[in-house]
């Protein structure tokens, strides 16, 4: 060996070209093999170093990089946004932060190094690399999420991160889950959805998301909110303190910011009511259910007022229109519902309640209907493919499952009472497909995710719940 550098480069080249872990849920087994192989190389390297008398600093630096590759990936390579370097560095150094195969894990780091709107060919390259994987676990799913971000498909990215967030610990490492969760927390904070950020981060002590959750408790005037001193403490323990300092200051100021007052306009009547609605639609991420209720109720009141009816009848007369006032009002209400449905579909803060009335109730119903129709299509596809034992590549299957799950959650958000009906619709086709994936395709992570979601919907006393529990245990058992 000419130098320690050449020695370490040779070792890394061997790692990169050989691949180590077999496909599948073998996280612990992979970790043991990585540690054993690295120990062998480190020992042999040390012996050679002692004999050759190499300068220590170079060898030690190589040793540190070799033993702690995750540190260099997270702190050096990812911030520099070098996806190809991240990919090959991961292939060459075998970080232990994921439970997937080396190929998939390397794609995970490469995808994280990509930015939004990245070169499409580069994105496609990593997508193909992921598609070659026989099984995808947490790192693969999160990688798919970051690739969706790179393709500027944020909705799909959120679906992937949400699925990853709910994976069993057998299929996703803590660090990978933290990356997915941090993205979801960040998105919740962008939309001022402090409750969601709180729910996501409150159990994750010493992480960034935990500090954000504690800050959200202050912003929401939660009874369990920490004191100023405690908030400073959690801020000091959390990473990225400089960037979260402003949030700390805001949280210390405190005050309920969950439900801003609905916008009011200076002009009365229907124009003013429509103006308030337009103001809400201009800032959809700040809209909450109570605010929307009051604004839409005002529009409903104005549409039903005698003043509006008289004005409408006069215009019909002036223009020589043949439609009656009632027909025009019906069309106006219909268009108002059309206006509200996209808002309900895309906002995670809007939730259906029992006291919805009028146009808003109709809009929630229509949003639920649209989601159920999409679900019905996917459900039928699962049923057909389970019967014919037809499957796509794992990446596509995860994308379809993430979408199905997101649609199901949307149905429950707009109509919380639809849980039983949703379960009845989804149980058979999804269960059968999950069993097919589990038994024939050995996609345990995917199957477990499906069993788990159905299990959450199932009535705990039903026999279906026992079957799902049994299947979940089977998916977690050693292959």
């Amino acid at each position, binding site marked *: 060996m000419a130098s320690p550098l050449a020695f370490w480069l040779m070792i890394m080249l061997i790692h990169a070209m050989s691949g180590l872990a077999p496909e599948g849920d073998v996280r612990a087994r992979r970790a043991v093999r990585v540690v054993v192989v690295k120990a062998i190389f480190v020992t042999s390297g040390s012996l050679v170093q002692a004999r050759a008398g190499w300068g220590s600093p170079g060898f030690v630096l190589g040793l540190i990089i070799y033993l702690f590759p995750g540190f260099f990936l997270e702190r050096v390579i990812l911030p520099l946004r070098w996806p190809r370097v991240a990919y090959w560095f991961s292939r060459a150094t075998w970080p232990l932060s994921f439970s997937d195969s080396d190929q998939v894990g390397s794609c995970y780091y490469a995808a994280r190094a990509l930015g939004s709107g990245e070169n499409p060919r580069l994105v496609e390259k990593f997508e193909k690399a992921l598609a070659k994987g026989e099984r995808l676990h947490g790192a693969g799913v999160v990688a798919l999420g970051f690739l969706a971000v790179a393709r500027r498909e944020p909705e799909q990215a959120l679906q992937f991160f949400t699925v990853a967030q709910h994976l069993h610990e057998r299929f996703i490492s803590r660090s990978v889950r933290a990356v997915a969760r*941090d993205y979801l927390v960040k998105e919740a904070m962008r939309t001022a959805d402090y409750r969601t950020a709180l729910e996501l981060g409150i159990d994750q002590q010493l992480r960034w998301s935990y500090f954000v959750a504690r800050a959200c408790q202050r912003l929401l005037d939660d009874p369990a909110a920490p004191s100023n001193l405690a908030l400073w403490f959690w801020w000091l323990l959390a990473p990225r303190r400089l960037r979260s300092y402003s949030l700390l200051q805001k949280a210390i100021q405190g005050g309920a910011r969950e439900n801003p007052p609905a916008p009011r306009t200076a002009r009365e009547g229907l124009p003013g009511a429509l103006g308030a609605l337009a103001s809400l639609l201009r800032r959809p991420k700040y809209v909450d259910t109570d605010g929307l209720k009051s604004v839409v109720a005002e529009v409903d009141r104005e549409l039903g007022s005698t003043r509006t009816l008289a004005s409408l009848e006069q215009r019909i007369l002036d*223009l020589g229109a043949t439609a009656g006032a009632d027909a025009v009002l019906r069309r106006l209400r219909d*268009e108002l519902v059309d206006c509200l449905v996209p808002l309900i579909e895309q906002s995670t803060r809007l939730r259906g309640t029992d006291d919805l009335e009028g146009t808003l109730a109709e809009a929630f119903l229509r949003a639920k209907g649209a989601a159920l129709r999409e679900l019905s299509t996917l459900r039928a596809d699962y049923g057909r493919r389970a019967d014919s034992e037809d499957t796509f590549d794992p990446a596509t299957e995860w994308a379809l499952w993430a979408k199905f799950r997101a649609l199901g959650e949307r149905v429950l958000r707009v109509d919380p009472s639809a849980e039983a009906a949703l379960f009845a619709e989804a149980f058979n086709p999804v269960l059968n497909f999950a069993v097919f994936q589990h038994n024939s395709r050995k996609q345990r992570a995917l199957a477990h995710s499906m069993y788990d979601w159905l299990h959450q919907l199932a009535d705990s006393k039903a026999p279906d719940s026992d079957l799902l529990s049994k299947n979940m245990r089977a998916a977690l058992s050693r292959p």
Partner: protein
Amino acid sequence: MCLKHQDLLTRWRHNPFFVLEVATGSTRVEIERAAQKLLALMAVGSPKANRCETPLGPIERDADQVRAALAALRDPNTRVVHEFWANVSLEEATGTSTEQGWEEGERVAKVREPWPRR
């Protein structure tokens, strides 16, 4: 990258009265004249014709949209519906400071790349 909400006002912003830049009380002749003027400007490639301001924000428009707007306003049954949507008042008595507060809250929570570490 943040999740960009779909623009929920696109359809409203393209109300025929906004596209043609005419008042809801305009006569049929005024509407026809406005449309023909826009089409003529577009035919000669005037950049001003392709963009206009509406109460809900600026829009881009093309000749097809101008013709569609004209057709919609020629029919009194559809015109009366579009008049109601066009009569929108966005003068806000309150809400500005609240919006600023919300936007500031978003800014302080904004996490730029690279991703937060554990």
